[in-house]
């Protein structure tokens, strides 16, 4: 604007009409967009339908039992006395034992692969861990039955005999007999821990390896040791990935069926002694009773399934939110 022009002239100039900024997508774009939109809707729809049919199928049992369904430990549909209190406790117990076993190993393995492994070893290890995650659970179940179970008996016995005095929940009724330990929540939990280990390792490794090179070098250049650098840069960066990986592992552990089914002997009570034979989880219970149930007994199984479905949905969603909200997880697939 030149100095001679009066500023008021600017004001009387009319504001031009806004233009449309949208453009017609090409045919290929339209086809692709509607195709992918359909696929996205389909996944939501399937999830919704599963929830819907579970609820409809479970309704007779929930109607009959009311809140008692969540407080009753026994499972006697013939007498109308059944609920998931015992199953739920067993499910959480096995899940927690699995985490206690899996998390430290996964954490160490993920750190080793992303930070310490020589390049020649790194790639095979990543592939191997991913491959382990793809091994069907039934293979883990067979391996646990023919190998792990026998190995863990002595561990369970040792724990019970040596630590039972200080920690009474580790005792069993007949500590000298190996059969006291054979089908416990502990053994099932350890086996499930092996199932979820690759998943947790994979997620943790992924976020660790994304820790920015600039910050890593910054710490090293200040004179940090490798471990100091990991503590100052990699772990804070990967914190959400660690939490998310653990939660996702827990989600898998809660739903793990065949491994638990193969190892435990079912009881319908609260498992207060995890080393002692006898426990039960929702998934294993459904698998074992599915074929022989009808009527309200079947509805009860569906109701138990619905609870598990809701439980794992909440945990996995929470894990997804934790990971994606973090700085490290923005680019991580879980």
């Amino acid at each position: 604007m030149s100095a001679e022009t009066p500023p008021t002239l600017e004001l009387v100039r009319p504001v031009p009409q806004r233009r449309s900024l949208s453009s017609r997508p090409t045919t290929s774009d339209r086809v692709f967009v509607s195709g992918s939109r359909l696929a996205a809707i389909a996944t939501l729809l399937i999830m919704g339908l599963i929830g819907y049919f579970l609820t409809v199928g479970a309704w007779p049992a929930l109607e009959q039992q009311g809140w008692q369904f969540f407080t009753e430990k026994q499972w006697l549909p013939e007498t109308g006395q059944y609920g998931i209190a015992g199953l739920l406790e067993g499910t959480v117990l096995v899940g927690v034992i699995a985490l206690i076993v899996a998390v430290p190993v996964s954490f160490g393995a993920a750190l080793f692969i992303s930070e310490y492994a020589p390049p020649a070893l790194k790639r095979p290890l990543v592939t191997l861990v991913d491959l382990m995650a793809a091994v069907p659970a039934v293979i883990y179940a067979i391996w646990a039955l023919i190998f792990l179970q026998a190995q863990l008996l002595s561990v369970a016995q040792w724990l019970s005999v040596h630590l039972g005095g200080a920690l009474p929940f580790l005792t069993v009724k007949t500590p000298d007999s190996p059969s006291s330990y054979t089908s416990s929540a502990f053994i099932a939990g350890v086996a499930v821990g092996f199932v979820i280990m690759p998943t947790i390792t994979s997620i943790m490794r992924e976020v660790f390896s994304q820790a920015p090179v600039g910050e890593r070098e910054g710490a090293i250049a200040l004179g940090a040791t490798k471990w100091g650098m990991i503590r100052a840069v990699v772990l804070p960066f990967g914190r959400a990935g660690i939490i998310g990986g653990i939660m996702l592992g827990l989600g898998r552990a809660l739903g793990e069926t065949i491994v638990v089914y193969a190892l435990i002997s079912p009881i319908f009570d609260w498992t207060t002694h995890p080393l002692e034979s006898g426990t039960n989880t929702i998934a294993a219970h459904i698998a074992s009773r599915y074929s022989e149930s009808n009527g309200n007994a079947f509805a009860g199984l569906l109701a138990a399934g619905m609870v598990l479905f809701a439980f794992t949905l909440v945990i996995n969603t929470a894990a997804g939110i934790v990971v994606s909200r973090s700085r490290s997880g923005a680019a991580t697939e879980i």
Partner: protein
Amino acid sequence: MTITSTADPVADAPGSPASPARKPGSLVAQDVHAWFGDHQVLSAVDLVMAAGEVTALIGPSGCGKSTFLRILNRMHELVPGAALAGQILLDGQDIYDPSLRPIESRRRVGMVFQKANPFPTMSIYDNVLAGLSLTGQKVKRRGKDNEADALVEHSLRSAGLWDEVRNRLGTPGGSLSGGQQQRLCIARSLAVRPDVLLMDEPCSALDPTSTRRVEETIRQIASEVTVVIVTHNMQQAQRVSDRCAFFLAAEGLPGHIVEQGSTSDVFERPRDERTADYVNGRFG
């Protein structure tokens, strides 16, 4: 080691800045050759970086000056396949001596990178002290002989950042602007009291105002610490450095120093034609 062992007695007086860092160190490169795998990137580099001076390393991209800089604090060896020949003497002692741990060399020879890299979720205060905690040095954070506060203030003052952040030391380092982040990185490097500070194009991502502030900072800290700076900016090299080394790598050959000397000589009376061409912007 504690801070008090090297600190000036006045450091503890309230309101006074902490003591200046110890005497700057002299760095001498003797017949340095460097490789990445089979590829040689540096050949026969001899350079004296005198104590208390600012030495600028200039030259076109790919001539090995950043590699040379990273050799000076043993960051070079972090790259897989990196190899080295020759010696780097810090106050007469070879930093590649097998008896010396790399972390000790890196603590004495600090580094500021091209891209500012503060620890983004750590507070400004903790960022400045990060080097001390990373190297296991204890510094009192509480009580009346609080050394940490004085050290943070002194480091931030030296880096020319104190006035801008004094009222928000608790906010994350990542919340600062790019130029402030770079000066925070300088403060962080100064807090461990290095003998030498290496700077790898510290202003290449900064706007002119921030660049000017960082250059002022470099001039200010030169009395405390020997500075070696890589820069592509000829004016910057002239403004901040006392001495200058011109690196060049001919096609397919490793980089080497074509000419070195006082900055005024290199820029105003270059002996080599290639130096004259480069400093006058005729290539590179």
